[in-house]
């Protein structure tokens, strides 16, 4: 079993997730090589060959160029699988490579089993086991699902160059919105999810946060709908928090939300759905209607 791991750089920096790829390859028992569009001043510790294209020449991510580089290395190496993180880079690039190689792609793998790869489905409530029917397979793995490899080894570097014409032109980055609420400092966070129903109900959640001396958090749909300001959003595209107490009100527990709060000391979830995936991280799951339970809890605390 031979794998080609596709690591990622952004603005000259090697992203840490690269070590998750190495961890995954270790679990798979695969012999692996890596491809990076980066710089030799920032190489990961890795025992194997790194095919390196200079980001100083290639520029920031261009899908046509990165696809071409991968296809060149696939031609040399003939790997059984090509592995990406399931991130904005991986889910953008992986299907392009799968299409070019006319092979299966299995997305957002959370575990390796005897019968194939486990992936989440139905908003993380369920799982599927998926097997590839083609000789070669493109894989993307869920961030945080596999152990981070130890930082050891010295790679053997092979330089790559390529040129492509692309119909896509990278213009630049826009920084994240400034956050005027620093949730990371709060001991208690009470989060409003879409299950609170409507904007008019948000003060009920806020009142519980206040009664506990904490801050209001929000899931993404609540922010997208304009019920709560973005500075309160918890998750991969919001803030990462680990308070002493996190109370999730009407939050289903999508992976992107969990990534922002699962390290909290004690997690309470209030959800009318007993099977909601938030139950996987909750220390206490209260099966109830938020709008009945939360006001009653707040009243009792005051």
């Amino acid at each position, binding site marked *: 079993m031979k794998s080609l791991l596709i690591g990622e750089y*952004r603005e000259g920096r090697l992203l840490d997730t690269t070590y998750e790829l190495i961890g995954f390859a270790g679990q798979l028992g695969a012999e692996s090589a890596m491809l990076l569009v980066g710089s030799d001043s920032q190489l990961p510790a890795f025992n194997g060959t790194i095919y390196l294209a200079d980001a100083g020449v290639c520029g920031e991510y261009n899908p046509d160029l990165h696809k071409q580089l991968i296809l060149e290395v696939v031609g040399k190496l003939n790997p059984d699988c090509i592995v990406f993180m399931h991130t*904005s*880079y991986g*889910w*953008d690039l992986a*299907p*392009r490579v*799968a*299409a070019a190689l*006319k*092979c*299966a*792609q299995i*997305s*957002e793998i959370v575990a390796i089993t005897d019968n*194939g790869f486990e992936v*989440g*489905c*139905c*908003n*993380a*409530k*369920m*799982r*599927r086991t*998926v*097997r*590839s029917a083609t000789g070669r397979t493109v894989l993307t793995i869920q961030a945080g699902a596999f152990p981070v490899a130890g930082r050891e080894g010295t790679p053997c570097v092979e330089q790559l160059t390529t040129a492509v014409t692309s*119909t*896509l*032109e*990278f213009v*630049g*980055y*826009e920084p*994240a919105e400034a956050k005027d609420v620093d949730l990371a400092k709060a*001991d208690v966070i009470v989060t409003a999810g879409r299950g609170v129903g409507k904007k008019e109900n948000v003060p009920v959640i806020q009142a519980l946060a206040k009664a*506990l001396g904490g801050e209001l958090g929000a899931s*993404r*749909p609540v922010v997208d709908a304009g019920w709560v300001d973005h500075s309160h959003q918890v998750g*991969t595209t*919001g803030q990462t928090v680990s308070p*002493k*107490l996190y109370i999730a009100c009407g939050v289903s527990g999508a992976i992107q939300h969990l990534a922002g709060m699962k390290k909290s*000391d*004690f997690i*309470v979830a209030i959800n009318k759905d*007993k099977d909601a995936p938030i139950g*996987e*991280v909750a*220390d*206490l*799951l*209260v099966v*109830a209607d938020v709008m*009945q*339970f939360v006001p*009653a809890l707040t009243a*009792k*605390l005051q």
Partner: protein
Amino acid sequence: MKLLVCIKQVPDMESRFKPNGSGTWFDEADLAWRMNEYDEYAVEEAVRLREQLGESAELTVLSIGPDRVVEAIKKALAMGADRAVHIQDPAVADKDPWQIASIIVAHAREQQYDLIFTGMQSQDRGSAQVGVLVAEQLGLSCATTLVGFSYENGIVTAKRELEGGIKGVARLRLPALVTCQLGLNVPRYPTLPNIMKAKKKEIAALPVDGLLAEPAVAVTTSFHPPAKKGGGVVLEGEVGVLVDKVIGILKEKTAILR
């Protein structure tokens, strides 16, 4: 200018999912269906562009699936799409993303769309593949995970969402395909007059048989709930009792309440 938006109908994610007879997907009995959330953003963005371009543009909505998907198609028509293509496939759930993309490609190759909108992923399968596979097979310029979109003089400016709230801005020349992320816009609710108007719009029904030549490349062998990690306490019952129990547990387990 010819615009296409691809939509999938998915079950309400608050449903209880049980494996079907073959144990490879969910049983469809007693499920409520709706338009994939990501696709609502795609439809809204496509309708906005259709309005910006006026009569020179035509927006087609496409969905592959059994007869029930016509409900989702009607919603897209009521939001402002001009016409629809329903690719009839009762066995859509057994197709892998490669096959779904190939079906869309077979239709789109003939139609020569200038710009295609899809969702970033479907809520039930969540593969995040179909849009990009369509673009690659048709040789279209493609950007994924859009939280910003604008179009002028043959050029799309796409704002892609990256990790940590950073955005990457790119320009694409037509023909192109974009995949839409949550929060790209605020999808409109169809108004009653528009729902009435939509009833007169064309929904062309095409059997899938003529459009699919590709075998599946990925095989699902099992559909099941996640293994219970355990440890957590689950409380059910009357609200007053629950409140007392929760306060008791918080006093015992956290330093927040005393």
